[in-house]
């Protein structure tokens, strides 16, 4: 009986959080309107969410691209089509690895920082004091961060893919001796702007929305203690990773499976 009660309580907790999360999203979206009149608020957040994630994104992109160069070459050379390496590297990055790995890195770098920052502001009554000063925290604190997160994800994913393609070139052409002209020509011929690039951008937009939503909501919904903030930070990373991987499966099915 107690196990059943515990299950029921857990489930009610989950439903409650889901409800609060959606109300939260709604109020944040409403607060985005007035935000457009004060671009300075979100440009500052764009710096701390986007620019500060640049280094880890660029370095990871380079390594992932170089590994793709090796792995792609090993597979392709058996079929005598090593010159298709450019296509393989670019498609893997643009369709999958760019959006997904960027979102996972984003959760660890920017998402956890967002949760911790907002959670601490709540724990130290800063959000409360803003409300009492007749300043809506949704407009002043939450919406700018939310918008900056959504905006930076596709840009970061694009950079990740671009650096990755360069990394694949370094290994494929520089080390393994694939023809440089073939690397680029094959890529140009076989990567489609709509089927591949646009779909990748849509993915990273969706991931950006979900990752930032989770991060900002976890911060705002945190229990206002040191322990609560640390737990919320961990939850942000875990939940974002799960949500991104599950959504990636669904989106991939919709985009490429239907074709």
């Amino acid at each position, binding site marked *: 009986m107690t196990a059943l009660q515990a299950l029921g309580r857990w489930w009610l907790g989950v439903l409650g959080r889901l409800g609060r999360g959606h109300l939260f999203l709604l109020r944040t979206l409403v607060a985005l309107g007035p935000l457009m009149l004060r671009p300075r608020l979100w440009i500052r957040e764009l710096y701390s969410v986007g620019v500060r994630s640049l280094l880890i994104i660029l370095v990871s992109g380079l390594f992932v691209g170089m590994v793709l160069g090796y792995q792609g070459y090993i597979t392709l050379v058996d079929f005598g089509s090593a010159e298709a390496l450019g296509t393989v590297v670019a498609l893997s990055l643009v369709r999958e690895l760019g959006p997904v790995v960027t979102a996972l890195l984003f959760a660890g770098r920017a998402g956890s920082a967002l949760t911790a920052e907002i959670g*601490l*502001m709540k724990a*130290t*009554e*800063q959000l*409360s*004091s*803003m*409300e*009492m*000063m*007749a*300043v*809506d925290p949704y407009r*002043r604190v939450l919406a700018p961060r939310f918008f900056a997160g959504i905006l930076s994800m596709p840009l970061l994913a694009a950079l990740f893919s671009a650096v990755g393609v360069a990394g694949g070139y370094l290994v494929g052409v520089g080390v393994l001796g694939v023809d440089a002209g073939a690397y680029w020509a094959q890529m140009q011929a076989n990567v489609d702007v709509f089927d591949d690039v646009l779909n990748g951008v849509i993915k990273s937009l969706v991931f950006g929305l979900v990752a930032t939503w989770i991060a900002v909501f976890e911060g705002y919904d945190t229990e206002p203690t040191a322990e609560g903030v640390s737990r919320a930070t961990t939850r942000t990373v875990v939940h974002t990773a799960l949500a991104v991987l599950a959504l990636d499966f669904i989106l991939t099915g919709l985009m490429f499976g239907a074709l």
Partner: protein
Amino acid sequence: MPDKTPWIEIRDLRFARGGRTIFDGLNIRIPRGQVAAIMGPSGSGKTTLLRLIGGQLRPDRGQVLVDGQDVHRLSRRALYRLRRRMGMLFQSGALLTDLDVFDNVAFPIRENTRLPEPVVRALVLMKLEAVGLRGARDLHPAELSGGMARRVALARAIALDPELMMYDEPFTGLDPITMGVIVTLIRRLHDALGMTSIVVSHDVAETSSIADWVYLISDGRVVDQGPPARLQEAATDWSRQFLQGLPDGPVPFHYPAPDYLGDLMNAEGRR
């Protein structure tokens, strides 16, 4: 003669939290222009009461009227308009940690008005001068002592010259000099700006020296009220015990517990 309708009227308020009833049948009327003190033991819900007045918590029953408006029935927009006329000094100060002292005090002015920057600057410096921290304008909240942070928070709370000021424990953790300055400052601000003030505190002497009217709350209701001088004469056992700090009397010092001797002798008890 100023308007006689009360600025704050709390009617039959009931509020429960975490399964505990904090207020039950609370009634308070604070006239315009008064310094009202709310005193009571720790955990009696004084901070909670200020949050109810500010519209941050919703009561389970009863009403809170501020300037004739029912705080909990206002639209968001109207509530925010009303809050612009209130200032609140938080127990913890609650300064914004990513802004320095100057920007903290400027924050409510910049967010709520369209005053040009030179005017904002003059206003901020005036408020900082009032709390003696004009020289600390470039420090960050992390570089302030607890008492300094409280004074900055006070400067910020009065930045827009509110009509109602709420102070949550303004005297705890201050050195005697700062304490004296804050006590006179609260009274002076009150008289100069013609505001209504609510001071929540358990510092009997300081609060009595500036309050016009004192409410003693315990067990979720007002147990005694009156001008401080009359309460000092101790009309009831309850107020005598609280105001003179006596351990024995109707106010329980102990959280409910089993019989002391039995508890000690119970060898099987795990803790």
